[in-house]
């Protein structure tokens, strides 16, 4: 019995080692064959965009298993234009700026609300590209018609979003009327809480809510603008040049129509895109 076990283990390990070295040699040959063909490849800069991977329609995991969304597609087009290698990095939204500083990504570009605190902290923020509103998402068959109706009810919000800071600051009076504010680690979790009747409403950016209403039956947005704000791209304080390069590339995409073409795929957000106004 013991011998059989030892044999099986040995075989397993051998298979594993073979698999690993197999992979290793394969990639190394790839590199060596690729290098002489394309000597410029090495000089290519990599541009890593930091996204919230659960933030449709701006950035999310598409049906094909690749990250997609409006922001991701625009960034990809920017990289193509500038000849950069495009990479995506999913940040932890409530630590996004720390991760940006740590160099895990080169920008945070994911339906990010421009906050004064970011500028004060020295981050380079691009020109705004999107007009956003904060809204309440509720179930279609619920009786709530305005934020006042939610007095004493449970409201979910994502931790680290501008909505959460609004409820803590400018909308503190409104938040105090709610029975409880539940913070989730992603909007999709907030929506699950709503779907499962654990909360009565979700406080969320309008395009995200609109996308959810379009894709899922039985929800509606309370028609009440609770906070106007704008989206931008954040770069490290030393990266003003990088920001200018990206902005120029976006402007070029707007000029040649690529930007509008990408926007067409996301009908819920087109009306609020500042470059297309």
């Amino acid at each position, binding site marked *: 019995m013991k011998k059989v076990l030892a044999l099986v283990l040995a075989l397993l390990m051998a298979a594993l080692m073979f698999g690993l070295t197999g992979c290793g040699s394969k990639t190394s040959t790839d590199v060596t064959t690729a290098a002489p063909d394309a000597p410029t490849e090495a000089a290519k800069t990599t541009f890593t965009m930091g996204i919230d991977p659960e933030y449709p329609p701006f950035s999310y995991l598409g049906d094909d298993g690749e990250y997609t969304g409006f922001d991701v597609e625009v960034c990809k087009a920017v990289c193509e234009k500038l000849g950069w290698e495009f990479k995506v990095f999913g940040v932890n939204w*409530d630590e996004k700026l720390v991760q940006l500083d740590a160099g895990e990504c080169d920008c945070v570009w994911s339906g990010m609300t421009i906050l004064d605190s970011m500028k004060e*902290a020295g981050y380079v923020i691009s020109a705004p590209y999107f007009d956003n509103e904060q809204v309440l998402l509720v179930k279609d068959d619920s009786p709530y018609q305005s934020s006042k109706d939610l007095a004493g009810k449970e409201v979910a919000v994502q*931790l680290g979003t501008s909505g959460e800071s609004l409820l803590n600051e400018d909308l503190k009076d409104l938040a105090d009327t709610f029975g409880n504010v539940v*913070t989730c680690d992603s909007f999709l*979790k907030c929506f699950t*809480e709503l*779907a499962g*009747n*654990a909360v009565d409403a979700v406080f969320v950016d309008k395009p995200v809510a609109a996308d959810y209403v379009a894709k899922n039956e039985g929800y509606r947005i309370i028609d009440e603008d609770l906070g106007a704000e704008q989206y931008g791209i954040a770069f490290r304080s030393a990266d003003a040049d990088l920001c200018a390069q990206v902005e120029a590339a976006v402007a070029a995409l707007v000029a040649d129509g690529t930007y509008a073409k990408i926007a067409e795929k996301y009908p819920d957000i087109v009306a609020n895109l500042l470059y297309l106004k």
Partner: protein
Amino acid sequence: MTLMTMVLKMAEGLEKTCAIFFLTLLFSIPLGMIVALLRGSRFKPISWLAKVYISVLRGTPLMLQLIAVTYGPYYLFGISVSRNKLIPVVIAFAINYAAYFAEIYRSGIESMPVGQYEAAQVLGYSGPQTFMKIILPQVIRRILPSMTNEIVTLVKDTSMAFTVSYQEMFTIGKQIANSQTSFIPFIVAGVFYYVFNVIVGFVMGRVEKAMSYYQM
């Protein structure tokens, strides 16, 4: 926000952290014993079921179990997600910790020399009597250090309740850290957990001493 407000705000959440901790112990300690006894059953299907239970609960992450218990019933059967998150959180923690406790109990029970059972039989003790009066007291004494280990881990694991939006101390700490762009809440959380565990260590040390009546 002053340090005092931060600490007070997080102390509010500490109440919920304690709720997870004590309720989990309350349910998982007896449940673990049941699983351990079933695992030792001579009726194979039952012992096999207990083995599968332990294997699955130990072999999958607690975070996954939390999500499964909280949102699983909704996704699978359309049952509403519980408004009182403490219920699914405690269920998930209790079934998970019961699996670990069951194995600790087993290690204790199996470490008892066969001679004691034989001696008890000679003295006319019945099976259950032997277990309750002779074996179990010694087992408890023997497994206390391993139990302390697991209980200390439980204190720290409570922070995982954040995944299902349960507003315990660490969640509140994260909220403050985020709104104040400050690292201090994490330090406060660290101090809270450490003090909690020092108390657990102290209490368990006392219990060990009180139970050391077999020592010469």
